[in-house]
């Protein structure tokens, strides 16, 4: 081959391979290089070649190593090879690889060097990149928080990063690396892991595996991602795996699974039980469960994407849904009952709960509606409602009917009531007749056989009704005695009635009882007729045993009276007869004695006649006790006054301890009683001894007592002395100028005052005669009706007397001497004003005043201070209204009281008068109107009931016998009224009332006054009394001033 050609070819080949050739003549330091070399060194074509030129192109960092490497190669005669950087004139750096060979001379000195350069920039770039990459990888692996490991196909752990070692809790890597990794794997996962490892290492597969390891005593879930990797050492494949601990994830997954299961269950339950729909914020349905589909009759496809309005029934108002949306759009749960419409147009009711699901901003992003079908319940409710409406209509209809029927019934009832009440009266009368003692009824037939008897007859005769029925009349007639002929039927007046048809009255018959005892009877035999024929007779008989006894007593009384009257008469008659005869000289001792006897006896006769007439009048009720308000102290003083001369005559001291209490009594009669008792006491007292007259309040009564130290009364006489002519010793009647009627009269008087009288005595020591008089209307105060009552409280008796004298003409006066009494009496009597001494000895008058002001019942009573002191100008004046200085100026005192009393208000009280007699009503209306009392008049019971509701009266005056309903009915009606049931009531009727009837009439404070017995004036006074109590109470309730009814 042509050498030039070869050379040319070589150069071309070198250039194509980006190589350069150089030839360095060391001896001349000339370097011949190819154009490729120049190119690679970034030199211009034809540049001279020296070592310096060469070295200048080398990167300064590499120059030293190039020189060194060249030297080494030269000295050791080794081939030279070095990679170096050249810097081109443009500053760019290029990697080249230089290779060369030194040539030596015979001396061994290097004289020439031949070599090549090769552009290795690309390679270098790749190498650098690879190195960087490796460094990165290493750093990554070292820093990798997961486990990175290399495992050989037999399971030997070849390498593992720090995280991996930490994961399995290994402190010393040398003890682990090089060991089998399989021991770390949980036994049940070991086979899988081994198989996985072999698959990677033997077959070059990559893959993922989850398994558990047992490390540090705990099991942990791992997930490994493995790739095969060629082991550089032996070129076998190993497993490179990244493994991470997924224990927590596994736990979360497990929890999630159970949660999901739970949710699934819930959803199942929800879907099974409820109609569930989910909508977005706009109400577009995004979910519908089967039940929703079923009830709405839409398929799921038809529902999803539709607005919820698709099932709107238009039953509910717009406001209803507005409210609903307002609620749920605010994130609150809404609940309610909704009527929806199904696809076919039918309606169904659902109980709906809409739960908004909220995003992080708490804004709803969807709504879950859970509904329950309540159509059946709604239907039932509506049925119920309809039924109820119907029922109500029916009730209303029925009520209307009932009202009508009721009215009709009421009319009938009223009619029947009237008839019944008439019948009742009749029946009552009949019953009275039949049952009253002494009135027996016995029917007889034509043959004298008893056809009937009433209970009274049977009782009187000692038989039962059955025993007598059918028996002969002889059964009850006395048995004939030996010398008497039996009662002949024919001769009996009863029989005569049967014969002549006339009524026969017999007053001296005796009837026989079952026990053969007999009793006197009076009977009337009346024929019974039927169609003009006499068919029998009725005997009406009365047991007259008692009447005969009364008659006997009357006879005895007459006998006694006649004896009592004849006794003085005998003396008078005898005395005067003797004197008249002239046989005796009237001036002789005997003559004078006879005259004395005659005069004394006349006096006695007069007394007797007076007493007899008196007691007769009192007991027969022919004289009314002239009751009025009177002060016990006055009565006692008067009686003592009358008896004082007699006491003096007998040498007896009379001691009176009076008490000032207002009584409702006949003052003359009480004085008569007191003088009578005092007279007895004085007459039976030893000269020099004392007779006491005292009085004390006992609850609602005043107890008067007359006490002596006389001879006393035997126990057995203590009762009888109050009988007529029952003196302890008959001779007393003359000796003591008595009539034997005094105590009987006293008893009658006391009884007429509803009091009691009795005697206690010890023989030889003395007697106490006591009697009581009720303090009438204690709570309304027994003050003088016509006049205001003044309570005088002064410890000085003389002052009390002075005040009493000053005041008694215009006022009722009550005097007390002690503070205790003052308060007691003020509470009890409710005076209109109190005159109080404030320097009472022993007590501080101011304390009395304080007590009076503390007491609710007395705090409003005005107090006038009466004192020897002048008023202290610094004193508070709220407790008293005026101050009067002693010694008293009568005019000033009266003026003060007048002013004080004038302060009281007169409050109107209302009376309802129920009275059918117009004349009496007019009279009463006038009487009360004159007193400034408002009075309303009702003529009938119905009117009374109506008016009582309209005017709300303070008191009711009620007549019992009225044209329509009775007073009893009025009272009954009022007794059921919520506030009228306590209405004070004055029953003013001619009807005599028994206790039962009285009980039926009680409302509030109730008084029974009988027309004819009680005058209209007395009625008026009683009513005023009651009203005073009422107004006082009203005043207290109102905290007002006082009221008086002073005329």
């Amino acid at each position, binding site marked *: 081959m042509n050498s030039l050609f070869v050379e040319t070819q070589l150069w071309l080949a070198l250039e194509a391979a980006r190589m350069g050739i150089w030839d360095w003549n060391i001896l001349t330091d000339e370097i011949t290089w190819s154009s490729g070399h120049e190119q690679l060194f970034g030199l211009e074509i034809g540049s001279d070649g020296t070592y310096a030129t060469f070295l200048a192109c080398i990167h300064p960092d590499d120059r030293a190593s190039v020189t060194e490497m060249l030297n080494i190669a030269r000295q050791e005669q080794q081939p030279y090879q070095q990679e170096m950087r050249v810097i081109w004139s443009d500053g760019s750096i290029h990697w080249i690889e230089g290779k060369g060979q030194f040539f030596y001379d015979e001396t061994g000195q290097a004289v020439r060097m031949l070599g090549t350069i090769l552009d290795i920039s690309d390679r270098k770039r790749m190498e650098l990149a690879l190195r960087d990459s490796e460094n990165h990888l290493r750093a990554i692996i070292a820093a990798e928080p997961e486990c990175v490991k290399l495992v050989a196909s037999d399971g030997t752990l070849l390498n593992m990063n720090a995280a991996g070692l930490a994961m399995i809790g290994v402190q010393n890597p040398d003890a682990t690396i090089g060991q089998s990794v399989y021991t770390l794997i949980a036994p049940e996962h070991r086979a899988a892991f081994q198989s996985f490892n072999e698959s990677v290492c033997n077959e070059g597969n990559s893959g993922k595996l989850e398994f558990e390891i047992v490390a540090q005593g705990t099991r942990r879930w791992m997930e490994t991602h493995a790739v095969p990797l060629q082991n550089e050492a032996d070129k076998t494949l190993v497993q490179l795996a990244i493994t991470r601990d997924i224990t927590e994830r596994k736990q979360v997954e497990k929890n999630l699974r159970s949660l999901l299961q739970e949710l699934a269950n819930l959803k199942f339950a929800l879907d099974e039980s409820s109609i569930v729909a989910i909508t977005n914020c706009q109400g577009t349905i995004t979910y519908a469960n089967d039940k929703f589909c079923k009830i709405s009759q839409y398929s799921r496809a038809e529902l999803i994407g539709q607005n919820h309005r698709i099932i709107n029934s238009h039953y509910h108002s717009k406001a209803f849904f507005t409210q609903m949306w307002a609620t749920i759009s605010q994130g609150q749960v809404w609940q309610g009952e909704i009527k929806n419409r199904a696809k076919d147009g039918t309606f169904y009711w659902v109980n709906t709960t809409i739960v908004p699901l909220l995003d992080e901003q708490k804004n709803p992003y969807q709504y879950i509606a859970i509904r329950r079908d309540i159509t059946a319940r709604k239907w039932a409710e509506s049925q119920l409602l309809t039924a109820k409406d119907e029922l109500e209509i029916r009730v209303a209809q029925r009520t209307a009917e009932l009202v009508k029927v009721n009215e009709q019934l009421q009319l009938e009832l009223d009619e029947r009531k009237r008839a019944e009440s008439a019948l009742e009266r009749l029946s009552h009368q009949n019953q009275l007749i039949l049952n009253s003692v002494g009135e027996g009824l016995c029917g007889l037939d034509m043959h004298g056989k008893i056809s009937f008897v009433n209970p009274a007859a049977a009782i009187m005769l000692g038989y039962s009704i059955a025993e007598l029925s059918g028996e002969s009349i002889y059964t009850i007639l006395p048995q004939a005695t030996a010398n008497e002929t039996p009662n002949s039927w024919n001769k009996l007046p009863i029989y005569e009635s049967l014969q002549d048809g006339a009524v026969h009255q017999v007053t001296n018959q005796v009837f026989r009882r079952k026990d053969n005892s007999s009793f006197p009877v009076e009977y009337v035999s009346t024929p019974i007729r039927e169609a003009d024929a006499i068919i029998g007779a009725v005997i009406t008989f009365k047991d007259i045993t008692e009447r005969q006894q009364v008659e006997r007593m009357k006879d005895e009384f007459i*006998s006694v009276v*006649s*004896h009592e009257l*004849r*006794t*003085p*008469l*005998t*003396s*008078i*008659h*005898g*005395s005067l*007869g*003797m004197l008249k*005869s002239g*046989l*005796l000289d009237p001036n002789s001792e*005997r003559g004078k*004695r*006879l005259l004395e*006897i005659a005069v*004394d*006896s006349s006096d006695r006769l007069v007394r007797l006649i007076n007493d007899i007439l008196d007691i007769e009048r009192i007991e027969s009720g022919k004289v009314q006790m002239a009751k009025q308000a009177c002060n016990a102290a006055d009565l006692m003083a008067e009686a003592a006054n009358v008896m004082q001369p007699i006491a003096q005559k007998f040498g007896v001291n009379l001691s009176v301890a009076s008490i000032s209490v207002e009584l409702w009594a006949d003052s003359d009669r009480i004085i008569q009683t007191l003088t009578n008792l005092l007279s007895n006491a004085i007459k039976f007292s030893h000269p020099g001894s004392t007779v006491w007259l005292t009085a004390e309040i006992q609850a609602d009564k005043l107890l008067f007592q007359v006490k002596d130290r006389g001879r006393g009364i035997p126990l057995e006489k203590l009762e009888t002395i109050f009988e007529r002519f029952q003196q302890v*010793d*008959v*001779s007393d009647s*003359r000796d003591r100028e008595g009539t034997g009627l005094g105590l009987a009269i006293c008893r009658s008087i006391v009884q007429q005052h509803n009091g009691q009288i009795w005697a206690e005595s010890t023989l030889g020591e003395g007697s106490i005669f006591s009697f009581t008089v009720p303090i009438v209307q204690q709570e309304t105060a027994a003050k003088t009706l016509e006049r205001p009552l003044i309570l005088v409280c002064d410890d000085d008796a003389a002052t009390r007397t002075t005040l009493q004298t000053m005041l008694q003409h215009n006022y009722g006066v009550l005097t007390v001497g002690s503070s205790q009494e003052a308060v007691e009496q003020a509470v009890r009597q409710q005076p209109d004003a109190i005159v109080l001494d404030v320097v009472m000895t022993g007590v501080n008058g101011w304390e009395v005043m304080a007590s009076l002001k503390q007491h609710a019942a007395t705090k409003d009573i005005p107090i006038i201070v009466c004192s020897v002191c002048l008023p202290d100008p610094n004193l508070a004046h709220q407790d008293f209204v005026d101050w009067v200085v002693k010694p008293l100026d009568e005019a000033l005192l009266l003026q003060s009281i007048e002013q004080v009393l004038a302060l009281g208000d007169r409050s109107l009280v209302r009376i309802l008068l129920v009275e059918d007699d117009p004349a009496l009503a007019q009279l009463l209306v006038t009487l009360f109107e004159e007193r400034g009392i408002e009075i309303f008049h009702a003529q009938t019971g119905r009117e009374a009931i109506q008016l009582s509701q309209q005017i709300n009266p303070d008191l009711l005056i009620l007549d019992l016998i009225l044209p329509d309903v009775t007073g009893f009915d009025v009272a009954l009606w009022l007794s059921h009224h919520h506030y009228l049931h306590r209405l004070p009531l004055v029953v003013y009727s001619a009807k005599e009332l028994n206790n039962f009837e009285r009980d039926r009439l009680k409302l509030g404070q109730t008084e029974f006054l009988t027309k004819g017995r009680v005058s209209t004036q007395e009625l008026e006074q009683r009513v005023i009394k009651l009203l005073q109590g009422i107004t006082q109470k009203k005043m207290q309730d109102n905290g007002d001033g006082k009221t008086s009814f002073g005329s």
Partner: protein
Amino acid sequence: MAKRVLVVDNEEYIREVAQISLETVAGWQVITAGSGSEALIVAQTEQPDAILLDVMMPDMDGIATFEKLQANVATQHIPVILLTAKIQAADRRRYADLGLKAAIAKPFDALGLATQVAAVLGWDV
């Protein structure tokens, strides 16, 4: 010798009037007793010729007193005349049955009393 008559009455005035009457008109000696029981003693001790006995007396009435006088042999012979307001036909019969001499009505005639008594007892006045 003047007749001695016992007047028994609980009323002092009547005793006095009777006494004055009998003593003045007939000149008899009159003794008195104020009660039945007193009369029994006085009658036995004084042995009067007759007893004028009031009927209506407390404690022991005239009839009881008479019966006691009759029961006592020392007094049963003394004629007793009742002095009473209580005289009716039935009473007179009863008194007669009891053995009483007579009953003189009250008020009696003061002048005629002695005559009446004498007539009953057959005394001269």
